[in-house]
């Protein structure tokens, strides 16, 4: 019995000491999915900055599943972390995860996607509406304000879909000579981008430009356009490696680059400022850039 007690005390001391060692310099990063190059780059940006500033970074993958996300957050909160950065799977569904962190008094920073409720110290993201407008402005300029445009939309109902679409359409509407002849979803997916674009090409004899709300769909659409031997400019969004290569090769006109790595690194910088007791803005915009040849 005594032995058992001693073991229990020893374990408690050991656990106590390791958790306190974790506490000060450990940040958690809960990512919506690592099954997407964009978020892998975001994670790498955060890792690099965390290393530079001397933090230990725990990375968890929610696999686009809000239930998995909540479980991840609960697990990581048991590890006594100093701050949690979260890239939500969904702005509404993340509510209970953020409230769990609030209850444990762990400060929360949201990355890329915001949260609609719960207490968040700061939100770090690029402005998708502005990005959509940048794409629209580029298309207007290339077509000299006249032509037929196709929009490939992301997952229906996702905030990126709404915001990028809103910005793009706002910009396009200013040019009365441009009509959007088809607006179809391809779920941010390359294969679907290919199939949906093939179908649209069958329906529309005249298309001058395609705006895809992410690069994966744009790259799929380019394959369809090339196979149909049509001459159509394509603008993507995200600035992934494959898309930048396509822009260099000339098959894609441009991609509006969210700087995924910088979202991660600015997220860690914001976390660092919060932990050092400095005040941070509620929203830190991460600049976008149009990448052309």
């Amino acid at each position, binding site marked *: 019995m005594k032995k058992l007690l001693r073991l229990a005390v020893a374990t408690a001391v050991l656990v106590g000491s390791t958790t306190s060692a974790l506490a000060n310099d450990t940040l958690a990063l809960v990512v919506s999915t690592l099954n997407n190059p964009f978020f892998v780059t975001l994670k790498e940006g955060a890792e690099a900055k965390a290393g530079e500033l001397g933090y230990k970074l725990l990375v968890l993958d929610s696999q686009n599943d809000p239930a998995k996300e909540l479980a991840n957050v609960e697990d990581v909160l048991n590890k006594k972390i100093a701050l949690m950065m979260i890239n939500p799977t969904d702005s509404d569904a993340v509510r209970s995860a953020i409230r769990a962190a609030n209850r444990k008094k762990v400060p929360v920073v949201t990355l890329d996607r915001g949260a609609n409720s719960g207490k968040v110290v700061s939100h770090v993201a690029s402005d998708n509406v502005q990005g959509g407008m940048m794409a629209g402005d580029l298309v207007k300029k290339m077509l000299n304000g006249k032509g037929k445009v196709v929009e490939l939309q992301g997952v*229906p109902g996702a905030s990126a879909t709404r915001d990028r679409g809103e910005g793009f359409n706002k910009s396009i509407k200013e040019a009365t000579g441009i009509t959007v002849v088809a607006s179809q*979803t391809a779920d941010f997916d*390359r294969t679907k981008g290919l*199939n949906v674009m093939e179908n649209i090409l*069958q*329906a529309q004899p005249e298309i001058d430009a395609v705006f895809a709300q992410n690069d994966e769909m744009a790259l799929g659409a380019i394959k369809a356009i090339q196979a149909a031997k049509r001459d159509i400019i394509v603008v993507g969004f995200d600035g992934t490696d494959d898309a930048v290569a396509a822009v260099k090769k000339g098959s894609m006109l441009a991609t509006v680059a969210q700087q995924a790595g910088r979202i991660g690194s600015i997220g860690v910088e914001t976390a660092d400022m919060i932990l050092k007791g400095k005040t941070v803005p509620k929203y830190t915009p991460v600049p976008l850039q149009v990448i052309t040849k």
Partner: protein
Amino acid sequence: MKIKEFALENIPLIGLVILMILVSLASPSFLSVDNFLNILRQTSINAIIAMGMTFVILTAGIDLSVGSILAFAGAVCASMIGADTPLLVALFTTLAIGAALGAASGSIVSFFGVQPFIATLVGMTMIRGAVLVYTDGRPISTGDFEVANAFYELGGGYVAGIPIPVIIAGVVFLVCWYVLNHTRMGRHVYAIGGNEQVAKLAGVNVSAVKITVFAISGALAALAGIILTARLESAQPTAGLAYELDAIAAVVLGGTSLMGGRGRITGTLIGALIIGVLNNALNIMDVSSYFQMIAKGGVILLAVVLDRRGKTTE
């Protein structure tokens, strides 16, 4: 009377024809040779997976792992092509991997008595994980070697004006049709689905047949992965997500019973075409994405209900 019999026998086909008539009335650009070839090419991938799925479902099983096998096979194939592997070596290795992954599921079902739903659900999850580990979450390009151009033809090429994926799907169909209708293996598949105990007593090697049908399903999923990778000249880590559902829908739309023992490979082909035509039509008519999901679900529901009614009045 003969017309009624024909109608009851061929509800999926009639459904497809009606759907095509409705769509061509709604949209003039639907009825063109180009668009039909386009639909066939897009359908070929689901059709190939669904034909493998038909074997499994005929034995009263189910294979949820096909989408993950497709992605894994695509990734392995893309990296081999990217490393300048001779085309045939890459293709056969990929098909063998698909067959082996399928056979592994089949073995778990046969030797450990695990339900096919669970065994392949586990397979789906683990293989998808393996894809992510293998690709590090990024697309794999097929590269710039000479072999990559030949590889692209498998997905984007034509022979005599017909897209190569369509030809491949056609050959797969003929082979599957022959195996199911004219070989001992085919009779055994139907026998196991009809009544496994009786089949066993009649001397059918049930384990061997089950492992074989899952291997066929895995190999065909890998073949679909090869075609998809060739079309895009790259393999996506997210490739094939939820493809098992489209394949199962095609099989069921084609009139095959999920309880096994009853169904035809021809029906599966028609089922896949119904889904393909529907996807194409919704895009061509520029239907809002929110309504598309309702429309797809509704058509599948209608087709299945009609088919069940046809069966009960038989």
